[in-house]
């Protein structure tokens, strides 16, 4: 049996679309939604409910629908879409959900993007009020953006058969849209939902560009686009949603909002069923009843909860043989997978006096203005007792509300509000009015009288559903108030009402009403729950846009990177940098590769790509004075040509970074930072220069990426350097430790620094990034006879740890001082002040039980301690709480030591050297010996080669 009307609706009956739902084939037409196509086949049940497994159908015709969640399976699997907003296309495969979907394990092949738009007036909603607002603003010359979530303009007009100015309303809509689209500076966005409204006129809108094309969607077009709109003025013409009434068994398929049934009829040419009972508290449902009756639906009964039904509409019903019962309600329903009967009761009585057979129940409990965006824009809401709904309660300087979003129900009045709001918005944005837009005159038989406010019909509270998606009932609300909850926010969280995909569009107001009734308070005194973005669901893919895969986060690579890739390096992410981690040879794992790299470097020569090291060029007359304040040690006394290691602290005296400082010239230094801290330290410098010492003549520039930096490390490094830099005297006497020289290296001008982060004889070769690869390859060639070995960050970490050199951020967190690291030698006693100095005198900084950096040697030299392990005092764990002495910060097997070792921060660590402590590892306590942090070449004999 078909429920499709022979004519009417904006569907193309001449074209057949095939689709599959819950495994069965169906047909529909272009213009259908999945919901309307299913209803045309008499299919009401979409899925079942999330907790109780009750059959659930289609309640509304649009994005406010609480129940019709589906998973679209083809062309691409996507969960949690509403059948009422999925436009039908050929080949669609979908199935109903029980409140939860399933993300596709496959990567989404579609493209998503974002676009920025700036305008003078943004109008949200293309119903009568929004259209008139947009046209009024456009005629003033303002840049206007009109967004609307439907695939065609018209708003509520799409669901009625009204005539405007004596012609079908669609013609009036088409004329307005045509004028808007032909006006320069006006952008009309269909299928676009404004889902978030933020400060200063910032609005996010999601445009579904190709969803409706299904398999025919061109791959070259972004499927969805997030519009990032910045507007001076906004007109919210977001309309109103019809509100249901809670009654027993109000969730069966076939029970639908009256205006939605009317929309299905007029927009899609679909009847909701054969025989309907209408349950209303206001006038608007009469129009649905009359329209459906004229289209062939048997309207078995109209129950109007009000004692007096509207005389004219009641007479129209009588003329069509429709019985109207005033003062009556639907108090319950029968049926299983579809409603089969409605139990009718007087509003005041508790038991039904009549059961009416039907396959459809149409409900209208009044209208809720859509105030979500207004509330997001921090507009205050006011309870309108006549409407039984929250409405915009104040004027905002840049946001105006027009149409039924204000609570106004009359079309003419809505259009007038739109015209006023459009004119005011344009004027506020600095535009003078253009030609006045005439207001349309409607022939609607429906009056704008508001109805009786009725939240629920007394009955079985456990089966009276408030939030159908969450399976939350009147009984749940009563449990919440019974438990002492008074705030709507608390009730929302206790009952989960309003937390599903629909954000309580049809349920929130009812819950609020029942709470107020139960507590005996006025709703006007209740604060409504806060509306938050997004208004409708937005997929993560849309929010991510193009920022996926390689574009998710910028990747920084050094100039030598291609060589590392070509030679099989595995990479480690350090901030945004890709750094070679190690270079495995055939069959090597991390452990064996690193042991080999360490051994080769300590015994002959190795080299690494150190280009990611942060580099800041500090210049100016006061550069030395400035660095003296930033570093704990003295930098102004450094001689040109020399290098000094330095530590930086915060004002609290805790280490924030370390590195070398090169004095390039009298008024010029090159500061190096930890790879991950380069930007932070530049910020730190600028902050002090701008906010505290603007009188200093100092300029800081990041030069990190200007230089390729290659540490050449090991006893043979001098021979390799000599081979590629024949003009440079590399002898220890001529080129001392902690000095630098300018020289030609591999035919390229270079700055060579004699510094070491491994304890070995080492040179750091700096050339412009442009020459990085050429110099790297020249060094590889020159070192070949010594077995030169490229190594990565892991080997660097092991080599420095063997020497007890800390890595800032690994050995330290924000609680470690230079003294804790055993670096009192790097803290100046002479300087009157530097950042952090005063904190070193604080009592807290002088406690003897501070955590201090030490080495740990597991008694069993084969045991590798997990980094992060806790350290305890006794070989057996006492009853909790157990006193923790500290934790392991670094732990490696060492080729040079022939055993494992670790660095750790330990309470009173410097006093504990020689003690045995214990490290809980899984179920055992591993004994370890505390040592000095320097474990290899304590005398520093290897430094000069």
């Amino acid at each position, binding site marked *: 049996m078909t429920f499709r009307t022979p004519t009417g609706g904006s569907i193309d009956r001449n074209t057949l679309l095939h689709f599959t739902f819950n495994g069965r084939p169906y047909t529909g037409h272009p213009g259908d939604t999945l919901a309307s196509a299913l209803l045309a086949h008499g299919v009401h049940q979409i899925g079942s409910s999330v907790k109780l497994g009750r059959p659930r159908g289609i309640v509304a015709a649009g994005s406010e629908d609480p129940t019709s969640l589906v998973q679209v399976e083809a062309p691409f699997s996507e969960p949690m879409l509403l059948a009422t907003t999925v436009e039908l296309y050929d080949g669609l495969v979908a199935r109903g959900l029980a409140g939860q979907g399933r993300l596709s394990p496959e990567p989404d092949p579609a493209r998503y993007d974002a676009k920025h738009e700036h305008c003078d007036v943004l109008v949200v909603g293309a119903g009568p009020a929004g259209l008139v607002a947009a046209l009024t603003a456009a005629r003033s010359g303002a840049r206007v953006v009109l967004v609307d979530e439907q695939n065609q303009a018209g708003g509520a007009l799409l669901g009625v058969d009204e005539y405007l100015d004596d012609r079908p309303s669609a013609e009036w809509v088409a004329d307005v849209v045509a004028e808007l689209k032909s006006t320069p500076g006006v952008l009309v966005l269909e299928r676009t939902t404004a889902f978030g409204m*933020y*400060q*200063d006129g*910032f609005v996010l809108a999601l445009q579904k560009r190709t969803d409706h094309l299904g398999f025919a969607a061109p791959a070259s077009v972004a499927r969805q686009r997030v519009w990032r709109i910045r507007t001076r003025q906004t007109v919210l013409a977001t309309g109103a949603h019809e509100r249901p009434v809670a009654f027993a068994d109000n969730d069966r398929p076939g029970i639908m909002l009256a205006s939605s049934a009317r929309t299905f009829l007029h927009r899609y040419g679909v009847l909701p069923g054969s025989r309907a009972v209408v349950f209303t508290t206001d006038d608007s449902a009469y129009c649905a009843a009359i329209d459906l009756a004229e289209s062939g639906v048997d309207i078995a009964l109209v129950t109007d909860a009000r004692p007096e039904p509207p005389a004219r509409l009641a007479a129209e019903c009588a003329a069509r043989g429709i019985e109207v019962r005033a003062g009556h309600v639907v108090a319950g329903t029968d049926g299983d997978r579809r409603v089969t009967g409605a139990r009718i009761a007087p509003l005041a009585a508790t038991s039904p006096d009549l059961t009416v057979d039907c396959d459809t129940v149409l409900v209208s409990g009044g209208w809720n203005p859509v105030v979500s965006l207004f509330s997001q824009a*921090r507009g205050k809401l006011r309870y309108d007792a006549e409407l039984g709904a929250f409405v915009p309660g104040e004027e905002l300087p840049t946001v105006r509300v027009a149409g039924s979003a204000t609570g106004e129900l009359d079309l003419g009045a809505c259009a007038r509000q739109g015209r006023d709001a459009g004119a005011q918005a344009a004027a506020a944005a600095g535009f003078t009015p253009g030609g006045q837009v005439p207001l349309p005159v409607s022939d609607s038989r429906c009056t704008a009288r508001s109805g009786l406010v009725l939240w629920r019909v007394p009955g079985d509270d456990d089966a009276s559903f408030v939030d159908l998606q969450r399976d939350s009932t009147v009984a749940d609300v009563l449990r919440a108030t019974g438990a002492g909850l008074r705030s709507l926010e608390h009730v929302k969280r206790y009952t989960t009402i309003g937390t599903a995909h629909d954000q309580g569009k049809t349920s929130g107001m009812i819950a609020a009403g029942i709470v107020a009734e139960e507590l005996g308070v006025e709703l006007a005194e209740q604060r409504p729950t806060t509306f938050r973005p997004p208004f409708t669901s937005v997929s993560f893919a849309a929010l991510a846009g193009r920022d996926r895969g390689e574009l998710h986060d910028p990747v920084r690579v050094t100039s030598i990177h291609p060589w590392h890739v070509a030679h099989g390096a595995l990479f480690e992410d350090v901030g945004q940098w890709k750094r070679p981690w190690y270079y495995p040879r055939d069959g090597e794992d991390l452990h064996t590769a690193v042991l080999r790299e360490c051994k080769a470097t300590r015994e002959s020569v190795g080299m690494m790509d150190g280009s990611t090291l942060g580099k800041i060029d500090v210049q100016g007359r006061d550069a030395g004075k400035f660095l003296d304040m930033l570093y704990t040690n003295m930098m102004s006394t450094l001689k040109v040509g020399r290098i000094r290691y330095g530590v930086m602290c915060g*004002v*609290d005296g805790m280490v924030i970074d370390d590195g070398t400082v090169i004095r390039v010239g009298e008024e010029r230094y090159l500061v190096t930072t930890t790879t991950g801290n380069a930007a932070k330290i530049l*910020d730190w410098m*600028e*902050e002090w220069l*701008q*906010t*505290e010492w*603007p009188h200093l003549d100092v300029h800081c520039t990041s030069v990190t990426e200007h230089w390729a930096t290659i540490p050449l490390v090991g006893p043979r490094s001098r021979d390799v350097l000599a081979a590629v830099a024949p003009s440079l005297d590399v002898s220890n006497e001529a080129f001392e430790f902690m000095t630098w020289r300018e020289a030609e290296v591999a035919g390229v001008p270079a700055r060579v620094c004699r510094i070491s982060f491994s304890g070995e004889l080492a040179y750091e070769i700096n050339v412009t990034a442009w020459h990085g690869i050429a110099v790297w390859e020249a060094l590889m060639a020159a070192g070949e006879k010594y077995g030169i070995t490229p190594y990565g960050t892991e080997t660097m970490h092991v080599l420095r740890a063997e020497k007890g050199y800390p890595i800032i951020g690994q050995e330290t967190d924000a609680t470690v001082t230079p003294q804790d690291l055993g670096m009192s030698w790097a803290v100046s006693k002479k300087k*009157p*002040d530097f950042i952090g*100095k*005063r*904190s070193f*005198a*604080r*009592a807290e900084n002088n406690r003897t039980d501070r955590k201090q950096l030490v080495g740990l040697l597991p008694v069993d030299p084969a045991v590798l301690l997990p980094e992060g392990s806790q350290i305890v005092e006794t070989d057996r764990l006492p009853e909790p709480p157990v006193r923790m002495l500290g934790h392991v910060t670094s732990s490696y097997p060492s080729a040079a030591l022939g055993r494992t070792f670790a660095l750790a921060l330990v309470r009173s660590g410097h006093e504990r050297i020689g003690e045995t402590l214990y490290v809980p590892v899984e179920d055992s306590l591993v004994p370890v010996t505390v040592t000095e942090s320097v474990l290899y070449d304590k005398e520093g004999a290897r430094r000069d080669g």
Partner: protein
Amino acid sequence: MQLIPCPWCGPREEAEFHYGGQAHVAYPEDPAALTDEQWAQYVFFRENPSGPFAERWSHHAGCRRWFNAVRDTRTHDLLAVYRVGEPMPEVTA
């Protein structure tokens, strides 16, 4: 996404800015002369008013200048912005 009016660049999106905490907390003239408590006041203690609050901002992804702003902490509305070294303007919340 709020617009923050950088005194050098004009209104820009807040994502371009970094927050710098309470304004007008000067580095002490002579830290060595302070008691531990006075020094701790400088290092650790900050106001947390409900209402107008003078604070530092840096136009980090723009001109990279630090400046001061008076923000109403209840609404996030920026009541005034002014350059480093300028006195805090009178504001009405």
